[in-house]
């Protein structure tokens, strides 16, 4: 106990002794990892609906051929902003929110390593997203050259209006925010773990976030550099990407995808981590192949640095480059396959029950695999000449992001909300939300494979009439999917306010405390936890690997 007393003497400013401060100010100045986690998650949820509304505009316009609701430039702003808001405003912050809540709870730490920096990362994220959103109201509109911001398109007056510098500074802020977040996560995991917890005892969620944090530190600065070059090309007469001055627009694509490919893994690795946490609990078995999961995660992260040009097969690379990037990309399917195999093996002969978090996780395993398969198809360089920049690729990455990352975020919400709030969510509505989402997400995205193979290009507001039927079906799926998410919003609010009224146990889910530390704490989780680190840590999840 003496250690605790010392801590309070020296760092009275880092820790509030008696629970949260009163009033609204609490949320602005808080350095408590649970408060900051909540802020991140609520912000991400709000952005999920902002980005979602943009998707609804896109699907409404594509409901029928011809121009109905919006003009083409605004349509293109919508595709660009939808992607940026979802990637940088919704999915990434949601996982940072989960990291804030869960990592200290799971490794027996009292808080994040650098609590004040943690507060700063959050508010910088808000500033970055607001700056980005402000471009919607500018003369000339928000950026509309696609989320990849390719030059020369993005530098042309017609595509940028006044927005480019704002978008660039927004990327800087978002980059600094995620780098600070990543540094914090690494420091927390390395320095704050309960002494009893060895690295190879850590839950997979913690492992995947550790690796993701390194990816963030490695690639966010590269993206910041690329957009800075865009800015100087536009306003300060440099010629990084300007052919007339000796530059090359293809160079931008290389730099962007050096960031961009690891970026997609930044969104999927924590997804893998949450899935590996939830599935064993509802299969009532230890995770199959814990050590291989850790190695698979690390090798996916490593490979993600050396495959970037599979996004630019059609750019006119030398044949050696095409072949190299083709085979390297296919290699990623190996560790990814190991993971899918392990999740399946974990469920094999398990005493499974199908509560909402498990349903979303199972759907993730199945539907993510679909996205992986289309990825493999596109990895075949000669075949990709047909798929590239069509709806096929739109279908590919939405399968890897919506029924994968987003579904797992939902699963995480259902899984941990009872722990965080002490209230049970309404299982009936949860299951309804699951079935509506799963059915509609497939109506929404599956037809896009057909559209792409038939040649419908991405990022267009109008299309040839032969694409009409599948587009209408896809839009209907989109509207159902969008509407179903309001159920999730309802459930989150309802659960925070008391849910079913049923008192949840500390464990919440049967024998969950065998799998991870947070379930040994009271429900709801007190404001301060693990002021003394736990003496023993659950190792059920690693049993299989020894």
């Amino acid at each position, binding site marked *: 106990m003496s*250690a605790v007393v*010392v*801590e309070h003497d*020296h*760092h009275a400013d*880092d820790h509030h002794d008696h629970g949260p401060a009163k009033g609204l100010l609490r949320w602005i100045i808080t350095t408590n990892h649970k408060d900051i986690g909540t802020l991140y998650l609520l912000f991400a949820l709000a952005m999920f609906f902002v980005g979602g509304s943009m998707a609804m505009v896109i699907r409404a316009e594509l409901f029928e051929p011809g121009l109905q609701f919006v003009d083409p430039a605004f349509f293109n702003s919508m595709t660009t902003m939808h992607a940026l808001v979802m990637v940088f405003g919704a999915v990434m912050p949601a996982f940072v929110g989960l990291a804030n809540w869960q990592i200290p709870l799971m490794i027996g730490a*009292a*808080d994040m*390593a*650098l609590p004040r*920096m943690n507060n700063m990362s959050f508010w910088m994220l808000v500033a970055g997203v607001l700056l980005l959103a402000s471009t919607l109201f500018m003369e000339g509109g928000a950026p509309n050259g696609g989320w990849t911001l390719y030059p*020369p398109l993005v530098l*042309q*007056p017609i595509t940028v209006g006044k927005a480019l510098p704002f978008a660039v500074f927004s990327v800087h802020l978002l980059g600094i925010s995620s*780098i600070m977040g*990543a*540094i*914090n996560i*690494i*420091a927390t995991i*390395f*320095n*704050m773990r309960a002494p009893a917890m060895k690295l190879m005892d850590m839950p997979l969620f913690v492992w995947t976030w550790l690796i993701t944090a390194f990816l963030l*530190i*490695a*690639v*966010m*600065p*590269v*993206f*910041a*550099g*690329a957009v800075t*070059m865009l800015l100087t090309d536009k306003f300060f*007469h440099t*010629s*990084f990407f*300007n*052919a*007339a*001055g000796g530059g*090359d627009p293809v*160079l931008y694509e*290389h*730099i962007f995808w*050096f960031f961009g490919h690891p970026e997609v893994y930044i969104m999927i690795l924590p997804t893998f981590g949450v899935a590996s946490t939830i599935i064993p609990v509802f299969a009532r078995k230890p995770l199959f192949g814990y050590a291989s999961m850790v190695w698979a995660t690390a090798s996916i992260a490593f490979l993600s640095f050396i495959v970037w040009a599979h996004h630019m097969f059609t750019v*006119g*690379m*030398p*044949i*050696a*480059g095409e072949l190299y990037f083709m085979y390297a990309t296919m290699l990623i399917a190996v560790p990814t396959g190991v993971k899918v195999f392990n999740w399946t093996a974990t469920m094999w002969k398990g005493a499974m029950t199908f509560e909402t978090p498990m349903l979303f996780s199972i759907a993730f395993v199945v539907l993510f695999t679909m996205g992986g398969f289309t990825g493999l198809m596109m990895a075949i360089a000669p075949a990709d000449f047909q798929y590239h920049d069509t709806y096929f690729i739109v279908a590919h990455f939405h399968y890897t992001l919506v029924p994968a990352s987003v579904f797992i975020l939902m699963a995480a919400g259902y899984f941990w909300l009872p722990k965080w709030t002490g209230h049970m969510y309404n299982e009936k509505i949860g299951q309804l939300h699951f079935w509506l989402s799963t059915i509609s997400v497939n109506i929404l995205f599956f037809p896009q494979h057909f559209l792409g193979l038939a040649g419908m290009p991405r990022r267009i507001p109008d299309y040839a009439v032969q694409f009409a039927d599948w587009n209408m079906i896809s839009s209907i799926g989109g509207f159902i999917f969008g509407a179903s998410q309001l159920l999730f919003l309802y459930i989150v609010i309802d659960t925070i306010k008391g849910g079913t009224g049923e008192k949840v146990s500390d464990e919440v889910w049967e024998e969950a405390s065998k799998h991870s530390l947070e379930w040994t704490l009271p429900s709801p989780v007190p404001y301060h936890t693990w002021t003394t680190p736990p003496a023993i840590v659950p190792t059920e999840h690693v049993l299989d690997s020894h």
Partner: protein
Amino acid sequence: MSEDVSKKNVKLARILLLVALGMFGFGYALVPLYDVLCEWKWLERDRPDAIKKAPEIGYTVDLNREVTVEFMTTLNESTPMVFRTEKKQLKVHPGEYYTVNFYAENKTDKAMVARAIASFSPAVISRYFEKIECFCFSEQTFKAKEAKTMPMRFVINPEIPEEYKTITLSYTFFDNTEKSVKN
């Protein structure tokens, strides 16, 4: 948290911050790296802009073969010029030298500096297409309203593989006036 741990945290954070700054620099380092890699022989990067000036040496003309060379002219964004070619296409024998004239005009009342950038299709052709003279080798200065006829002299190396029957050569004029003044 104990004094000890917070020291460790700050130290680790500093190191990681340095790594992040290093990666920002790495992004910029990719620029020269890209040029170096593109020069590597074994990568055989077929870059249209890699075509340097070649001397007129005189090949044996292959009269049995004919290759169609198409010429395209474009203006970047709103470059205020007229730019066209005297011939839209030309049937040539590998090994024989040809000259094609291009016509460019400054439509403004001010002097301007413009630069034409060439591009080929298919890209491998850049290995067999030799230019003896081209207006695209350097920046061109135009006086107000000035018009110029600019020759491009070339030969196709007779070693060009049989399967290439049509070559497209495209030139785009970029208005470089502002850039040249500022630099």
